[in-house]
């Protein structure tokens, strides 16, 4: 046994060295991708504002300025840099708090999606057999029912069942995460199907490593690249999904601000106060653009299939 371990250890060691080399190379590639860098900087700024919103604005997100209660104030001075919304709340403040909700909801949902998807995909790809077959049928189902209508129905049901007036962002994040893991599971399964045939997987099996340890210690690090890319792009998709949901009135409810819910009433006020609708919309587009650029940079850097 000792002899076998001795000869097999270099293979595992080489695989690990290879990972380090690839990581350094990936960083080099990513930092050369200019749109991705710009995206990362923009995102860092947005995250900073979202986290420290409380210290950056003198207003409360639900506070109504009686002076502008009847008619929204246009962007300018008057103490409200970006003006007020249709009932006199400071728009900049609401954008900051809205970003906080939209970003944290998207990240929470993404984490749920990635954790569930990775575990299920890894086991399916590694073990194959009936579990894999059942998983693929489940993904087929999820891919056949359009996500938005299903999400609308589910949030409607959960909201009707809950005793609270509106759903918390964590609940919505859970619903989104639990509906979108199949994409990640498919990706991870695909990666594991080829990884399990690799020499180092064979070596790990030969020295008697347990399946769970092979999956998470030896194979998973090699699939982190594509998972990271997918996770990044999914944050953008989830932001869009959440804002659509809130826009239609089934997600985040007022007075809590999310970029989507801020647009919910905007259709009526568009002629007199276009900024009330355009600004939150722009926030969504800027954020998702930044994330998509970053995701593209990560793909170039991490995906071995690209060049």
């Amino acid at each position, binding site marked *: 046994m000792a002899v076998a371990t001795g000869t097999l250890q270099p293979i595992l060691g080489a695989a690990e060295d290879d990972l380090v080399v690839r990581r350094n190379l990936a960083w080099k590639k990513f930092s050369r991708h200019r749109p991705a860098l710009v995206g990362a900087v923009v995102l860092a700024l947005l995250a900073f504002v979202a986290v420290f919103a409380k210290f950056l604005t003198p207003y409360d997100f639900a506070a109504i300025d009686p002076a502008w209660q009847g008619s929204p104030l246009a962007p300018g001075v008057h103490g409200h840099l970006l003006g007020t919304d249709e009932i006199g709340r400071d728009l900049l403040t609401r954008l900051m708090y809205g970003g906080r909700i939209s970003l944290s909801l998207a990240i929470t949902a993404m984490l749920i999606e990635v954790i569930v998807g990775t575990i299920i995909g890894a086991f399916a790809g590694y073990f194959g057999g009936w579990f894999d077959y059942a998983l693929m049928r489940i993904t087929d189902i999820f891919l056949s*029912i*359009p*996500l938005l*209508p299903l999400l609308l129905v589910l949030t409607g049901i959960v909201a009707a069942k809950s005793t609270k007036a509106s759903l918390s962002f964590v609940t919505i994040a859970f619903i989104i995460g639990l509906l979108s893991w199949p994409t990640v599971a498919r990706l991870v399964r695909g990666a594991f199907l080829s990884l399990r045939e690799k020499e180092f997987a064979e070596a790990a099996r030969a020295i008697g490593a347990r399946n769970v340890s092979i999956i998470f210690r030896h194979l998973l690090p090699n699939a982190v690249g594509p998972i990271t890319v997918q996770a990044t792009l999914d944050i953008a998709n989830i932001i869009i999904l959440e804002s659509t949901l809130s826009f239609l009135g089934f997600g985040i409810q007022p007075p809590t601000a999310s970029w989507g819910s801020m647009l919910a009433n*905007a259709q009526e006020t*568009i002629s007199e106060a276009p900024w009330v*609708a355009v600004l939150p919309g722009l926030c969504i*587009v800027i954020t998702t653009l930044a994330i998509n650029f970053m995701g*593209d940079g990560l793909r170039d850097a991490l995906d071995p299939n690209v060049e």
Partner: protein
Amino acid sequence: MLTYTVRRTLEAIPLLLLISMILFAILHAMPGGGLAAYAGNPHLTEADIERLRHNLGLDRPLYVQYFAWLVRLAHGDLGWSQLNSTPATEALLERLPATLELMVTSFIVSLSIGLTFGIFAAIRPYSIFDYFVTAFAFFGQSMPTFFLAFILQWLLAVNGIHLQGFGYRLDFQLPSAGNMSTDGGDFVDRVRHLVLPVATLALIQIATWSRFTRASMQEVLHTDYMRTAAAKGLPFMTILLKHGLKNGLMPVITIIALTIPFLIGGAVVTESIFAWPGMGRLFLTALGQQDFAVLQGYLVIIAVLVVFCNLLADLTYGWLDPRVRYD
């Protein structure tokens, strides 16, 4: 090809059954179940609701209800729409033409523009046009449907474009709601109503499809057989059309089929903003008022639509690439 077609078609049946089970289960989790719409009615007592539940067979075990529903479904009966006071099938089918008009038009528009963009970007990589397509694609992917619809509606329907100069006056304003004018509407009127909703839906599809087409074509353009064809002295257009497109567009079929569910989701949003009298808008109304049969019926119809499109894509793929038939 025949065995492949039969096999694929048969495979779709268990999938549809599983989907129907899941949809049935989800909707029965709704508080009040099939009687949710009556729950808030002050004219109905608890005993009335119990009687309704019994008369409609909603007190039977769930699996019995499921099979009864399935049998009725097979006869085209989706149940009774409580809020429209019509059969749900009728309420939904009445809205189907408007939805199809919107989706098929935007599908054709985005297919022709998206593929053209992708192909030309692949032929001239890193040209100005290629950068334009890439930028456009990023923009389209980052744009929520409702915001795009909103901006288009605001700029071109609420405000419109009004230019004046050199003795001419240009007034361009599109209708902001509905699929035709109230007085009936001729062909031009209908097209004018279509422009904005179709543009909304198409822009996002174009973004996705042009990117995939570019990537796929790029791969094909660098293959050995393309070089061989060029070395033989074949004219560029022949190489591109006969060898390039045939191989390069195959993976795109799968992507197109995979984006159909998003097209349907996008249609819900677009119909809602442009007050388009389609199924998606009916679905949103039904959701707000818990019209059980319509919700269930809508989800079933779109799921069948998606499965059918996937099947169609699979069959097309199998027809174009014989290797697929033998896996």
